[in-house]
């Protein structure tokens, strides 16, 4: 069985395939091929959910499959194998993706002035706030200037930490 002990690996799998998906991963024999029907049987999870989870894992390169045709019936059987060794490279890909998104967000945060509803409904850029006469369109509360220097700082810090994760 595949034991997912690293808390980050667990969090990642939970994010991608959810709790049932994590159960499926942990029920898969390590280094061996297994059919989706067998996994559904031993976990008690519906076959549809098992297949959906396995395809999601496949999309993230965390599982591979091989098709085998039954010579008598002509039916195709899918044999699945989990690739826990690929978790780190999958996480590296996620880190690269997140760095790109954070860079885009950082530019946006630096290029705009923000106003927020005093009742916490939403945050607006200056242009939207003026269009609404500094009144919240949801609750009619007033919109007040919102300092975003902390957000800018945390994005910059986190980009550095994520970049270090790729170099370490």
């Amino acid at each position, binding site marked *: 069985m595949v034991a997912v002990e690293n*808390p980050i690996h667990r969090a990642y799998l939970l994010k991608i395939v959810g709790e049932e998906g994590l159960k499926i991963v942990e029920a898969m024999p390590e280094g061996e091929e297994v059919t989706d029907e067998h996994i559904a049987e031993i976990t008690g999870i519906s076959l549809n959910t098992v297949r959906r989870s396995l395809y999601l894992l496949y999309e993230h390169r965390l599982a591979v499959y091989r098709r085998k045709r039954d010579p008598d019936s002509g039916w195709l059987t899918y044999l699945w194998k989990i690739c826990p060794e690929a978790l780190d490279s999958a*996480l590296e890909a996620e880190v690269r993706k997140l760095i790109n998104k954070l860079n885009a967000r950082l530019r946006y945060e630096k290029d705009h002035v923000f106003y927020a509803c005093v009742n916490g409904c939403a945050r607006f850029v200056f242009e939207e706030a003026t269009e609404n006469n500094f009144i919240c369109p949801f609750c009619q509360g007033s919109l007040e200037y919102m300092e975003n220097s902390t957000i800018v700082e*945390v994005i910059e810090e986190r980009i550095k930490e994520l970049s270090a994760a790729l170099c370490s």
Partner: protein
Amino acid sequence: MIEEALEYIRSNPDGVLQSDLWKALGIDSRKCSRIVAKLLKDGLITREEELAEGVRTYRLRAVERPACTDRFTPLMASDIFDPCAGCTDECVPERCPKLSEWLFALAFSKSTGQKPHAAASL
């Protein structure tokens, strides 16, 4: 193909000759050179010149990564995992509410002095 090349190099602790790599992967040497250049640029492999049967080639070795469980903790903000992982929503990072929630959790941790990524609490 890049991942396959990296896996192949990693599976050979003594390194792989570039002239053997493209043969093993079933690709041509030009494509192999581009893959090697990308892996070098990402710092995933190292390259040393070597003569093999009188022909100049390169020995490629995977860069050893410490098996550090903390390496990816910056993907966490408090107990929220990277919102972009597995996300299928239309991607607008400037206004994405999930990314905002993750960033606000980070900012909150910073302002309250909490550990910014508490993976141990998962």
